[in-house]
């Protein structure tokens, strides 16, 4: 059992995007089918008619599932406004997905994007409401703050991994919770809390730090999207064109080889986690500076840090792949809101679909078995091995 092909098989590290599209496409399709099935069997009113009038029940079920997916499509791609909503939802997803993907490339599993988003977001928030200046200074300053906040928070996990061997999966999970309670506490201190509030709600950021909307008016997509795309291009360049990226990838492929080649593996672990956390922190700042009411609240990362794992897998851990995955999940989120609004299907269905996508992508053998595709040789798709390094 070798580690090389197994790692590629699941994270897609080292594969070409075009060649590896088959499994993600089938995974998405399968997940949507299962999602439709879930909608069908949970409609209590229709379930009651199956006994008396199966024909009517069947047509109503098809109507209900069809209506839901039509709303999903309408809300994500059906109009200019829907497209803007998709891009708006995709912005933090791309950044967070990129964070996890960078970790994968270097053989590290960062489950802590959620906590890093919170810490990065808090720094951006602090700069946002204390610094009173023009947008050209305020926005970059807040974004840099978010980068640093996220990087430090993730750096703790990288440092523990490098110096004590504590597995990053455990430490990042634990740091997520620490970050959650830390932000709850911070938001209730007089420094952050909005006057006259008893709950963890912060002051809003100054107008200068709000990310401007690209198209203005009702179209919610902000210049945060450009920030995300710049991050993608930068990461693509860093990972495939620089010696830093080469070192990251070498540590991911074979830490022993990296060590014998004279690379400082210990510091690379810290650097990779910090890079990953910086991107997650940027995603967090988007949740503060990029959407109304431009203030911090409890758990403002809203699960995006966990979606990021699915995104990185779906994007085959490639920066460009993550953009496609982010757009897809953005569309699912925007469409899910429409589905909830007009068809009364809870948006949590999108979460189920995302979980199914993870399972189908992480188990290519499962997808191949379902669709009877003759696959290449099948390696075990293992990333992590045990808690001890």
């Amino acid at each position, binding site marked *: 059992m070798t580690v090389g092909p197994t790692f590629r098989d699941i994270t897609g590290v080292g594969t070409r995007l075009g060649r590896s599209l088959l499994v993600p496409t089938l995974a998405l399709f399968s997940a949507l089918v299962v999602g439709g099935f879930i909608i069908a069997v949970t409609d209590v009113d229709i379930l009651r008619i199956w006994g008396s009038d199966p024909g009517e029940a069947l047509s109503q079920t098809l109507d209900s599932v069809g209506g839901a997916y039509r709303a999903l499509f309408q809300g994500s791609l059906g109009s200019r406004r829907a497209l803007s909503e998709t891009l708006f939802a995709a912005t933090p997803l791309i950044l967070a997905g990129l964070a996890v993907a960078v970790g994968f490339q270097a053989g590290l599993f960062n489950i802590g994007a959620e906590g890093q988003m919170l810490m990065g977001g808090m720094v951006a928030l602090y700069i946002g409401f204390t610094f009173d200046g023009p947008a050209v200074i305020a926005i970059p300053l807040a974004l840099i703050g978010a980068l640093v906040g996220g990087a430090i928070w993730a750096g703790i996990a990288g440092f523990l991994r490098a110096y*004590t061997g504590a597995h990053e999966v455990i430490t990042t*999970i634990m*740091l997520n*919770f*620490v970050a959650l309670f830390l932000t709850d506490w911070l938001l209730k201190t007089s420094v952050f809390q909005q006057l006259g509030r008893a709950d963890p709600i912060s002051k809003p950021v100054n107008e200068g730090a709000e990310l401007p909307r690209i198209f203005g008016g009702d179209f919610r997509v902000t210049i945060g999207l450009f920030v995300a795309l710049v991050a993608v291009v930068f990461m693509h360049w860093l990972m495939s064109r620089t010696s830093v990226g080469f070192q990251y990838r070498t540590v991911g492929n074979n830490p022993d080889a990296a060590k014998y080649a004279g690379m400082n593996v210990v510091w690379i672990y810290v650097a990779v986690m910090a890079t990953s956390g910086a991107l997650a922190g940027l995603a967090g700042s988007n949740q503060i500076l990029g959407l109304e009411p431009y203030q911090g609240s409890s758990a403002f990362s809203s699960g995006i840090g*966990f979606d990021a794992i699915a995104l990185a897998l779906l994007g085959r851990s490639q920066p460009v792949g993550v953009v496609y995955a982010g757009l897809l999940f953005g569309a699912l989120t925007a469409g899910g809101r429409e589905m909830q609004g007009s068809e009364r299907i809870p948006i949590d269905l999108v979460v189920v679909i995302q979980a199914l996508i993870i*399972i189908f992508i992480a188990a290519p053998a499962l997808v191949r078995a379902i669709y009877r595709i003759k696959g290449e040789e099948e390696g075990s798709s293992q990333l992590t091995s045990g808690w001890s390094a």
Partner: protein
Amino acid sequence: MTTTVVAETVRVRATPEERRARLLSVIYFLLAVVVVMVFARGVEAGEQATFGLSLPRDRFTDLAWTFDPRLLAYLVAIGMVVLGGWQLTRGFGSKTNLVLGLAMVAFVLSFMGWAAAGQSFSMVGMLTSMVVLSVPITLGGLTGTMGERVAVINIGIEGQLLAGAFAGTIVGSIAGRWIGLAAAIAIGGLLGWVLAVLVIKYQVDQIISGVAITIFAIGLTSFLATRVLGVNQDLNQPDRFTTINVPLLQDIPVLGNMFFKQNLFLYVSLVLVVGLHFGFFHTRWGLRARSVGEHPKAADTLGINVFRVRYQNVILGGMIAGFGGAALTLGSTGRFEEEMTAGIGYIGLAAMIFGRWKPFGVLGAALVFGFSRGLQQKLGILGTPIPSEFLQMAPYLVTMVVVAGLVGRARPPAADGQAYIKD
């Protein structure tokens, strides 16, 4: 200049044990400083604290311990200094962690004396809620232990708990609490089976499988809670399991309230802890399971069916988590709320590591974590300046300290997390 450089190079590096001993003694000294500066000096002279040790309906009422928190703090501080000195010069050998644990208990006691100065505080109420809160954590930790002892990391405990909580409520509302409980166990087992199939048959990465199971369970239960329970409130009102008082034992002061006036879920958890301890360390089944977790190839060579053992344990673990989920609904409020597990599954995972993959260790860790959760609820009543968020963080911080090896190294089963591929 040169002399310093020479001195630097000649200096022998301390072994990890020496470094740890030094670190621990520093910790003892720091704790002593905190105890004196905050807990002793923070109390006015002559002020008394009272810990209530009985509840109104107990056989022996009005038991209480009234003491001078200043005196207690000074005594604890002296003890800490002695321990620190002993640790530095002689060390405690194999009892290091035990001594550290007892020191922590003394520290917490002193802290509570400070918090309760001039007031009365129901210690027995606090300890009882510690036990109640520790039940789902224990069960989650046992689930993790069942998996990791056979080298399957189960990070989907949170999802299995949540699914059990949901199934218990909805089925319990329709068909009564016992059927509801059976459904919770079954759904936990089903998710255990899904995890087993993914990681054993399809050799999917164990962390990813677990994360996916948790996300799936969160999504599906929230979806159903809105779509089904939201419209049919009567499906969210199951019969609950009531308290079963153990005759005679329930009258023991303090302990009676903690352990013998509880419901089914605590009793079964305790039986499971004892049973699994015996099973893992004193039976053939346990030896086989552990060998699969330590060295699957050797186990296979000896004729043990590695895959079957893994399937069995992971499914059984899932069933335990399903039962733990039911404890949150059928054994508690009776109502299902979206994402009501709120990280308990991950605390269970932490309890497993803190408890060093042993059932009794898991129970002990769960009680410690239950204590911090209970304390966080009660501190508000006492009006201490410590924000509750810091107590909520405590289990996670403790786990990081443990995995980082600062307080003893936690060693998982050797093959933990690795798929087994038969040649």
